[in-house]
């Protein structure tokens, strides 16, 4: 009688996953990886084209005269500046300026927006909509969502879509017809590569999947699970809720909360926009005082790390997948931060991590050490603070 939810693609993905390593995502089960090892899927993202089921994303349609006003109150972004056909990535905060969630806003019309989020947000949206003329509809289960990522993504899409994708700019959305089915396509993704997200009615899901797999066959298309996507997103410098930051309403103590400024979303915080938005006062204060913490990138110095393993006669042992465990980051023997996700980057051939660092250690170039375990001993490998993203191919935004 009990069953976790299946995405609209489950019939395909279940058969294709060899290890059957299901993961939970927003009450659904999704494939961890299709192959027994993640490399092939990962390289499809970086060198060919990968097809990822991202349906569990929460999706909401906001329609009506005050749709823009609602989003303008909800988020620090200036929604007034968003054109129809534009997509904006943003976080949103509680009244104290701490992040609750993050997602994308697609402006599909003057009064029509689609919002995605990681956590269920119907309640928070409704609370913010008091006194406004807007209709909020959850469409999470009604829509399937696929992410097509990799250098060949546009080529493959152009084969199956009625309208060409050539003119679709980065972070723009369009309506299209894919293999005869109505879809919206946004040039967005969670991998930092050239990529598109395709949104369709659940009933059309399998048809669209099949069309893409067929069209992509000669270009090396591969279904890709979330484990490989996790590695790519770290390379892209993209954080994940409840892994790299704790949603303010999930936090037990103040110290677990993060502000959008800390998380590097200052470019999406428009403090000069008119009108009230949730968390404005707190963010204004924080901007004046400067951030106590910042999310940055960290590159481990291989030359500095190798000897630590060599001492016990081992070659360096780095996990083959992204690791979501917390690792202390030190300066002169004192902890000044921690890594929230770390991974080996196959494309960069580096061991990288998303790190949270206390002021003043978050300046790029700062040399710090990160904890590694060598034969049950906690040791520290040297590295340096870098700006995010780690990896951004030139074709991503072209």
């Amino acid at each position, binding site marked *: 009688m009990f069953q976790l939810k299946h995405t609209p693609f489950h019939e395909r993905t279940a058969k294709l996953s060899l290890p059957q390593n299901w993961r939970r995502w927003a009450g659904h089960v999704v494939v961890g990886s299709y192959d027994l090892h993640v490399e092939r899927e990962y390289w499809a993202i970086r060198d060919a084209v990968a097809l990822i089921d991202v349906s569990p994303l929460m999706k909401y349609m906001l329609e009506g005269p*005050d749709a823009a006003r609602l989003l303008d109150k909800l988020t620090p972004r200036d929604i007034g500046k968003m054109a129809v056909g534009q997509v904006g990535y943003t976080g949103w905060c509680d009244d104290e300026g701490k992040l609750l969630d993050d997602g994308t806003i697609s402006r599909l019309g003057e009064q029509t927006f689609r919002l995605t989020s990681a956590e269920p947000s119907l309640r928070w949206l409704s*609370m913010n909509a008091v*006194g406004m003329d807007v209709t909020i509809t959850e469409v999470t289960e009604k829509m399937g969502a696929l992410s097509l990522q990799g250098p060949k993504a546009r080529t493959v899409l152009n084969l199956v879509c009625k309208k060409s994708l050539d003119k679709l700019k980065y972070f723009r959305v369009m309506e299209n017809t894919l293999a005869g089915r109505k879809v919206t396509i946004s040039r967005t993704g969670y991998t930092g590569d050239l990529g598109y997200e395709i949104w369709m009615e659940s009933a059309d899901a399998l048809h669209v999947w099949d069309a893409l797999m067929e069209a992509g066959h000669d270009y090396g298309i591969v279904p890709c699970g979330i484990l490989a996507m996790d590695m790519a997103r770290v390379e892209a410098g993209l954080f994940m809720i409840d892994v790299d930051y704790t949603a303010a309403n999930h936090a037990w103590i103040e110290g677990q909360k993060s502000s959008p400024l800390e998380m590097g979303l200052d470019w999406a915080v428009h403090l000069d926009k008119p*009108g*009230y938005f*949730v968390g404005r*006062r707190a963010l204004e204060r924080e901007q004046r005082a400067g951030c106590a913490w910042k999310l940055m990138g960290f590159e481990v110095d291989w030359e500095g790390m190798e000897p630590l393993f060599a001492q016990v006669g081992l070659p360096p042992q780095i996990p083959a997948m992204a690791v979501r465990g917390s690792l202390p980051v030190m300066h002169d023997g004192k902890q000044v931060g921690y890594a929230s996700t770390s991974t080996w980057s196959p494309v960069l051939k580096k061991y990288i991590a998303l790190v949270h660092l206390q002021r003043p250690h978050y300046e790029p170039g700062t040399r710090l050490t990160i904890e590694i375990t060598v034969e049950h001993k906690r040791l520290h490998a040297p590295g340096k603070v870098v700006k995010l993203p780690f990896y951004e191919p030139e074709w991503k935004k072209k």
Partner: protein
Amino acid sequence: MSANKRWDTIIVGAGHNGLVAANYLAKAGRKVLVLEARDRAGGQLELHAGGQLRPDIVRELDLTRHGLVAGTPAPYISLLPDGRRLVLSAADAAATRGSIEQFSAKDAQRWPEFVAFMDRTAAFLDAAYRTPMPRLPHVSLAEGLPLAKLAWTLRRLGGKDMFRVIRAMSMSTIEFTEEWFESEELKAAIAAVGIHGFTLGSMSAGTGYTLMHNWLNRGGLGHRTGGTAQIGDALVAALKANGGELRTSSGVQQILLHRSRATGVRLNSGEEIPASTVFSAADPRRTLLGLVGAPDLPTEFVWHVQSIKMRGSVAKVLLRTDGAHGLPAGTLVVAPTLKYLERAFDAAKYGEIAQHPYLEVTTAGDVVSIHMQSAPYKLRGADWVDARADVERIAIETLAEHLPVLKASIRDVRTITPRDLERDYALTEGDLNHGQLILDQMFFMRPLPGWSNHATPVDGLYLCGNGMHGGAGISGGPGRNAAQALLKV
């Protein structure tokens, strides 16, 4: 005309609190404009059978010079079945004793001790209402001292009384009166004052507190008679003398903001009037969600404001008679037993009008004013257009049971339902208290936790009405506290 004058403070609402706040500010030299939607000042004053402004306010605003007449104490009479009466008169101890002795000699003996205890308790509550409630827990030294003083006042009641007061706050009137008395008639008569004006029953926790509150406001069980409308007149006269201005028939539609700071108001007529600060004497929900608007307020704050419990359940039935109504002078109640009061309240819980309601009745010349409870604003399966007649009928029938000559003397009836209270007196959900005086909506939590110091998330916008600490009744405490809060800054 005030067309081009730059106002320091605009006060929305010329009810008693608005006028009190305006007077204090004007006296301190501020340029004050009071805007009233109705064609006359006074707000809910005319709806109260009795009551008075707090003595320190009367004194500080010199209101007797402006025509304010103090009320005179009158007996408190419980109309019991079979024509019996329980008469409690502060002015006549012997008669009171005799009246109680009808039901219990032991109770008659304890009565003076009870009155003395209640007076001491009222004095403490009075001190509490004069103590500004800061925003916990970040209490500055300046804010903490009055609180410490209040704690010391409590302590000085002595161990026995101190605990009695603390315990009484959360007790129900049934528990509270049971610890003092044995006769049902006396206990119910007291409990009636505990529930008067509130949507609570004799068995509701917290009616011990509301009993103390009403006792403080009345100076005992019975109202001081003397008309409350004149309080409004005196306040208006004083305001003018202090240099403040009042405009009636000037309803405010919107409080104007810029970047979360109040900049003035817009009237229903469209006229915009700028000011440095705005005080609102309207209830918190109307002020914040109606005049400011949810979109400009923090999200959780909006939710909490929506959650303020108002749920008025009072109706008034005014009878114009030929004078031969048969009612003695004083404060009369129909509250024969504790269970009677509780049953009446039960009806309100389910959105029904009590068939056997608690009534409080006062007379002024030919006019008989019936205050009836358990006429809940949110009716289930009915609306107030139709239910008005039911209230009228029930109120008159219930009272007529005790006064056979009443019905014949009636010439005209006017009924004010909770819906009328909302529409005509701007009382959300018909609640004269601007928020029920329940345990989670008092002191530091009135109107909301963290917002007990009259401020709001909008800079320069202050709340000064009954919905604040000290409110419920017509003492004027909130108005004074709000003015002081601004003047101290």
